[in-house]
């Protein structure tokens, strides 16, 4: 506890001393260092505006304001506070491995590496989907049929009035023929 108070004293002295020199014209004899004694042997209240002979007096005056710990924190409590982050973090207990790409992910989510592939292809198809010229009156008013490079032309009844998107690259192996979910 005392070394904390000493540190405050040193910091304050470095910042406050120059100010004292400026307006503290008359420096009172520095009172004895015993902190507790100071409080009991206090001189009668001076009428003149408060000027602090030294930093020590200033701290004594304001010490009522500082919060002070009531009890001594024990060693184990201090150590736990500083180094117990291992205990604060709970181990994840709902991890599963993805059956296709054996990547570990939480049980209530999808596997992100699988989704990355899907995401890439989806954004390509989206880019194609968005390429239409609204000013010429083209609208997104027809279903979309995705045709990859090297695939035969889709039969009429599948396409029937759909908008065919030509993709540059091959159909990836994991993306089976789109079965229309009805």
């Amino acid at each position, binding site marked *: 506890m005392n070394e904390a108070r000493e540190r405050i004293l040193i910091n304050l002295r470095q910042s406050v001393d120059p100010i004292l020199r400026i307006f503290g014209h008359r420096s009172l004899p520095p009172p004895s260092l015993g902190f507790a004694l100071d409080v009991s042997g206090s001189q009668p209240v001076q009428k003149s505006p408060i000027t602090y002979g030294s930093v020590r007096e200033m701290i004594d005056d304001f010490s009522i304001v500082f919060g002070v710990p009531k009890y001594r924190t024990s060693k184990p409590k201090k150590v736990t506070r500083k180094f117990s982050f291992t205990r604060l973090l709970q181990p994840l207990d709902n991890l599963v491995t993805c059956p296709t790409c054996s990547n570990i992910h*939480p049980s209530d*989510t999808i596997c992100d590496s699988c*989704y990355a592939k*899907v995401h890439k292809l989806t954004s390509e198809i989206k880019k194609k989907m968005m390429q239409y010229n609204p000013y010429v009156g083209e609208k997104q008013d*027809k279903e979309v049929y995705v045709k990859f490079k090297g695939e035969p032309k889709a039969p009429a009844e599948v396409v029937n009035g759909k908008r065919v998107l030509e993709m540059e690259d091959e159909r990836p192996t994991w993306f089976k023929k789109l079965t229309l979910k009805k």
Partner: protein
Amino acid sequence: MSAHRVAASLPRIGVTIGHVPQKLKTGGIEPSRRARLEVLRRIVTRTVREERVELKWNRAVEARPYVERLIQLGVERGPLDEYTAEMMEWWLLEKDLITKMHEVIVPRFQNNASPFTSLFRLPPQRLQQFIQNKREVWKRYDIGVLEIHGNPFPPVQEESSEQSDSILDILLADALRNHQMDLQERLNSEKSK
């Protein structure tokens, strides 16, 4: 004396709806119920435009019932209904999406019941937000993938194989069958007593 057509009530929404509406905030609008509706409006518009979107997880959860309800209005009452037209006009910011809704999305679900959309959750992503005088600021995102069924994109998740061949599963099934037989005997003996 005109007799206005009676609007039949809509079926149940087959999607989980949070007990308490979330307070969604966005820049520019002072956070209020109005701001929440504006955020949802933008999300619904984007979902209808792209049919599969990635959003913040809590926003995806909040917006999903609204997309479902819009599709339900289109399916149950059709484009001519006054209430449906008003809602579509307000909820879809880009007006050409109203034609897309009535021509493309609603015909898909003519004889399907409510869950028209699916919602998947991605594992939490840790993305670098920005670098502030040599200190990288990372942010943790919970991302949800909201999609309308029948879209042309590759499926997010294949149908999981039914039969899991883990040993525990086989043992568990066997133990359960034995326990079931014991219970059956106990019940029969009780009845006979």
